[in-house]
């Protein structure tokens, strides 16, 4: 089953710490490759922490592990991923005359996958 969600890439403290430690280090890489999902959506999609999903936008696709978002941080239908290499692969090149690609709040589909390809 594939369903559409709204993805919010954003900053986290751990991602910021990872930048200083080095972008190829464990802290940064583990943070930017983990998708946070609302607990209701985890249940409805039959997901548990550490499962893998494929996210696809109009412009690209990525494979990431999932974890349940903290308490009521995310409403159902909203996904969050720390901003970085993977989240940026889902952005398009069009900036609508601003210089800024639409980098938050865009539609993605989420499909559970057995293992990353």
């Amino acid at each position: 089953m594939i369903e559409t969600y709204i993805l919010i890439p954003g900053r986290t403290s751990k991602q910021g710490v990872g930048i200083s430690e080095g972008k190829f280090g464990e802290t940064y890489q583990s943070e930017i490759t983990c998708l946070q999902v609302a607990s209701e959506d985890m249940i409805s999609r039959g997901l548990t922490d550490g499962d893998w999903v494929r996210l696809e936008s109009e412009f690209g696709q990525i494979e990431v592990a999932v974890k349940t978002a903290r308490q009521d941080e995310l409403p159902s239908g909203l996904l969050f991923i720390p901003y970085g290499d993977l989240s940026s692969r889902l952005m398009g090149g069009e900036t609508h005359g601003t210089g800024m690609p639409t980098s938050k709040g865009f539609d993605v589909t989420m499909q559970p996958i057995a293992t990353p390809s």
Partner: protein
Amino acid sequence: MATVTPDASSEHELKVITDATCTFCGCVCDDIDLTVDGDHIIKAKRACVLGKAWFLNHTADDRPSCLIQGQAASVEAGIERAAELLVSARYPLIYGLSDTTSESQRTAVGIADWVGANIDTTSSVCHGPTGMALQGVGEVTASLGEVRNRGDMIIFWGANPAESHPRHFTRYSLTPKGMFLPNGRKDRTCVVVDVRKTKSANAADIFIPVKPRSDFEALWALRALANDVELDANQVLHDTGIELSVWQDLMTRMKAAKFGAIFFGMGLTMTRGKHANAEALLALARDMNKHTRFICKPNRGHGNVTGADNVMAWRTGYPFGVNLMRGYPRFNPGEYTASDILARQEADAAMIIAADPMANFSQPARDHLKSIPYIAFDPKETPTTRAAEVAFTVATYGINVPGTVYRMDDVPISLRPALECHHPSDLEILKGIEKQVQKLNMKNAIAQSKNESLRPARDEFGSSE
């Protein structure tokens, strides 16, 4: 001024630098005490989690100061190659500049002028849309010191300082006891408007979970309330996901405040609407001044991204996305901004200073950057330095390098470096490139004038065209 004192608690001699400046984020906290042991910072007193990671992990990287096509080279050879690339390019792009000193930013704009380049900063993919909105409606502004001493109504909209600017609350906006707020946090009301309940929302008195992609509608609803315009409750609920009564309550509190401040983040500028969202918020702050004192400020991310805007503005007249190819500056976001230029495959060479577009740009932009020769500057190895034709490993600003940075409220602050570094600063390299570019320009001009003098004069043969 920074003072250096030996640490008495240690068995061997440690250096303590007081009032050092953290340049990780736009808060630019300048009250950090650093303890230095040899070539390491081992303690960063008063720094937040991000500041500690910044200071404790920026020892000089054990990489060559210059790599050309992945091979170690002298810095001088790198400078020569970089200058050749920029001078021979038909559409050179200079980009980045938010994590370096204003002295370096100034030199980079000079180089852009010498080679007729397009120059853009990471502002364009940060608060660039805010820069556009500022030109449209202006900004009612204040220093963070004024907010600390007077701000009794603090609103964060699409911003999560608890994670991105951890000392914002404690140093400037929420908990400090101010001149007119003797009880600190108790004297302030804090409101967070966001699509998700962030850590910042947990610190607020009121959290308004606005519907995703409806900031523009929500801000205009508030503007209407500020101007006593009647609204349809059903329409407001449908458009914003929030009951009209919640917005009315917020507006009542805003009008009752003595000094309100709205800090906003990339929740507005990166989401559909972008500059229109920022414009609505800036206009709301302006509207509120009919009732009381209200200001707004973007929460700036990188340590000197505000400096990048300032330096670009005082050197070219525009804050980002400036094209100097015709010998005078032209500004047009969408046309002269780095992400667009690369995604449209226009640039044929680039110089990236303290930025990582190979990790943060859209895939079409990355694909093109990878296909052209470019120069990269960074204290650490990044996806961008890895794919560079010329990669400079540079000393870190604020830790190894002195200079000036601008805090997010446009206040310039001096840096107090703690450590020596065997890598050169980006300023030294940029100055070298600028000099080399001038030499090559002179050489090319002489060669061109010789060619012209060898050409037959037009009147010998009449008009040839």
